[in-house]
């Protein structure tokens, strides 16, 4: 790798070519004859439904998976990417969906993880690391303390560190797998500036996202995958939102945000009175049967804290949570679930999935009691019920017995949603329910949430997506700094008013 930053000597021709790549997993064809060409200095977006094979393709480029067949050329030369190290040597830097940092190390050390600057003796040159990291952040305008421990930073800042790392390594090709899924709008803007800087240096960028808006903002070209096959590759200017969605899911989405309900709502089901925790102060609100109550806030506003507190997952200092007239025991998820409140966590991996267990057992966990006779599980009934949900949500899995860790992110999310829906709830709290989910599934989940509200549930939705918030909520609560700053009805809500309340 070159030691000093300099624009990549752009030779003519593509930076990277993927030719006819195939990859199978047991029971799944993840990629079939996929071609892809990245041009230097251009942003190439990769889109597709959940499970379309995007992450698989990226992992092959990163040297994590090996392709079954096909070829990869970098700068016109055949490249053999057997390990992540090979990929890095060839100038491919991948920013993964999951944060890939050592949380015990400082920010600065993480940035130089792959290749420490050393002194004459070959010892790690700590002062150079610190200075270089500070200089790098200054250059790209990130406001992060290089001496902070990564584990102490919020997820969004960790993401920024990841991206800074790509810059520090003189990559020729930068691949990003859903980098904005936990960034604030401001940070997204920063990221886009960084991407422009990258392309300015002649770096080729492969950008994976589920957010249509972003694609139109930064991509030059879009490739769409569906079920492991390349459906189309076009310059972005030839696409409209509709045509893109059509390519991705093979149909039109008439109305992403169905709103079929009477907005007046019913009786109060959930009421939260004077709730305070370490991060929250004096939270009061009610959620009614048949409504979607949306919570908006900037990153760190405290929505996740609130969600965890009201289902009894986190301890609370003061306050009362009442569900359908009965008070929840604080810090006790069992009464919560028994009273009919459940949380779909934003953090799938650590608070949702049971990785070693099958799709079946993951899905039925919360509702399992319903399928028991004197403590014994009636496996036939259980399977039948889960199968229904799997079919209804169109979860892609080779079998009910597949370990859930092998499913794509979106499909995992659907299974986790099924976990709650199988157990008739009164209040469902969903935290960033569509994080990492494709438009098709998104519309299905929206329809589902809408229908659930229609059936008399109270849906409490924490989200950072403005369209989602405006499209689905009946009322909108805005949080800032651990407080609710305002609660407004949807028909009174404007984007501006909400953002103002969020900054307050």
């Amino acid at each position, binding site marked *: 790798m070159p030691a000093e930053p300099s624009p990549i000597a752009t030779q003519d021709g593509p930076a990277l070519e993927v030719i006819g790549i195939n990859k199978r997993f047991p029971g799944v064809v993840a990629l*079939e004859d996929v071609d892809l060409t990245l041009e230097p200095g251009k942003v190439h977006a990769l889109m597709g439904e959940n499970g379309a094979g995007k992450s698989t393709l990226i992992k092959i480029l990163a040297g994590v998976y090996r392709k079954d067949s096909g070829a990869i050329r970098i700068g016109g030369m055949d490249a053999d990417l057997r390990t992540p190290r090979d990929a890095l040597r060839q100038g491919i830097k991948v920013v993964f969906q999951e944060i890939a940092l050592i949380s015990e190390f400082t920010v600065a050390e993480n940035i130089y993880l792959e290749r420490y600057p050393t002194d004459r003796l070959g010892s790690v040159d700590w002062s150079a690391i610190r200075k270089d990291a500070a200089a790098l952040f200054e250059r790209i305008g990130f406001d992060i303390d290089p001496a902070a421990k990564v584990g102490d930073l919020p997820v969004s800042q960790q993401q920024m560190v990841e991206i800074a790392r790509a810059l520090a390594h003189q990559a020729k090709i930068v691949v990003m797998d859903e980098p904005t899924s936990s960034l604030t709008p401001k940070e997204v803007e920063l990221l886009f500036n960084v991407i422009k800087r990258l392309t300015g240096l002649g770096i080729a960028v492969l950008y994976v996202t589920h957010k249509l808006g972003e694609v139109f903002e930064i991509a030059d070209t879009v490739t769409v995958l569906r079920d492991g096959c390349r459906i189309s590759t076009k310059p972005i200017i030839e696409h409209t939102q509709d045509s893109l969605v059509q390519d991705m899911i093979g149909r039109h989405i008439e109305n992403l945000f169905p709103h079929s309900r009477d907005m007046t709502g019913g009786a109060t089901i959930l009421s939260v009175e004077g709730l305070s925790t370490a991060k929250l102060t004096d939270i009061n609100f009610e959620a009614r049967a048949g409504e979607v109550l949306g919570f908006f806030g900037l990153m760190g506003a405290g929505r996740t804290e609130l969600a965890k507190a009201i289902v009894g997952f986190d301890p609370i200092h003061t306050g009362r949570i009442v569900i359908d007239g009965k008070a929840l025991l604080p810090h006790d998820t069992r009464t919560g679930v028994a009273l009919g409140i459940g*949380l779909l966590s934003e953090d799938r991996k650590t*608070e949702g999935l049971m*990785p070693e267990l099958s799709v079946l057992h993951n899905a039925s966990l919360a509702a*399992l009691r319903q399928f028991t006779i004197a*403590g014994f599980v009636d496996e036939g009934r259980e399977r039948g019920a889960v199968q229904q949900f799997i079919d209804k949500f169109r979860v892609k899995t080779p079998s009910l017995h597949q370990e859930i860790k092998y499913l794509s992110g979106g499909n995992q999310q659907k299974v986790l949603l099924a976990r709650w829906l199988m157990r008739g709830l009164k209040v469902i709290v969903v935290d960033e329910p569509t994080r990492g989910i494709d438009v098709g599934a998104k519309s299905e989940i929206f329809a589902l949430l809408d229908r659930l509200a229609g059936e008399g549930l109270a849906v409490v939705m924490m989200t950072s997506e403005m369209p989602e918030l405006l499209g689905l909520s009946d009322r909108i609560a805005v949080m800032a700094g651990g407080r609710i700053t305002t609660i407004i009805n949807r028909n009174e809500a404007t984007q501006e008013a909400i953002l103002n309340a969020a900054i307050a």
Partner: protein
Amino acid sequence: MREILQSANSTPTPHRLGANSPVVLIVLLALLCIAISIGSSRFYAIENITAILRQCALVLIIGSGMTLLLIAAEVDLSVGASMAFAGMIAMDVTNQTGSVWLGAAAGILFGGLVGLVNAIIVTRLKVKSLIATIAAMMILQGGVFLYSRQAIQNNNQLPAFTAISTGFFGPVPVPVLIAAIIFICTYIVLRHTLFGRYVYAVGSNPQAARLSGLNPERLKQILFIVTGLLAGLSGLILASLMNAGQPTAGRGFELTVIAAVILGGTSLNGGRGTLLGTLLGVLILQVINDGIIILGWDQELQLVVPGIVIVLAAYLDIVRRRAGAR
């Protein structure tokens, strides 16, 4: 075309072979039995089989509890020391009260108490169970001598006390019967009940389990106590076998149990494992032990051979799982 091969989707198989299939172990066990019986005709003698089963019983009783604990991603290394202490107490109380029932109850309850303390240290003080139970092992090993420096003999020579281990129920030795009952119960609980499912869930992801309305701490506490009770029961049987409470009994027993459970394919990281595997693991290790003596080999091999078998079985498990994942 690339539609997912949804075959299994429509044909639900109740107990899926493959991921957890014990084929390797069954083959291994069969090979061992054949090889040993070729070497010595005494291997299949009723008496030898009874002896093997009686040895298995002790390991299997604790192993049943330990399997559940390991699936729930915890471990208990204090069982060996707890056994010795429980045996001493059982014998002592029997001597004091003249009642074998009271003695047995005291021994078993003591085991349960140790389990409870382990549970509290692990779930409340959040000390990793590996460390907590090593420390508990040290404390018990020291403590047992503070309780009594001498072995406690069956002073009243109550035959009922020795009958716990040497009696027969029909053709079946009592300890084997006890082990069988415990094994079947834990098997059914783990395989077919809500509780069993929760054990896997908690072992796989305790946070997610809690969000789903489970109480992982409570469940782990129950498992520690159950394992403790079973260690107490094993201690009682061992004391009965020796007709005395011996303070040094059961040293290293924890490693035997864990070796058997691991051999049975239970993951040290939680979320994965079966009791059938444990049963096979116990059988294999005891058959090896017995075979070495039956064949008149150097008894030092009782360390070497199981050492190799454990590593080999773990390796074969990896190979099989990889093959299954292809």
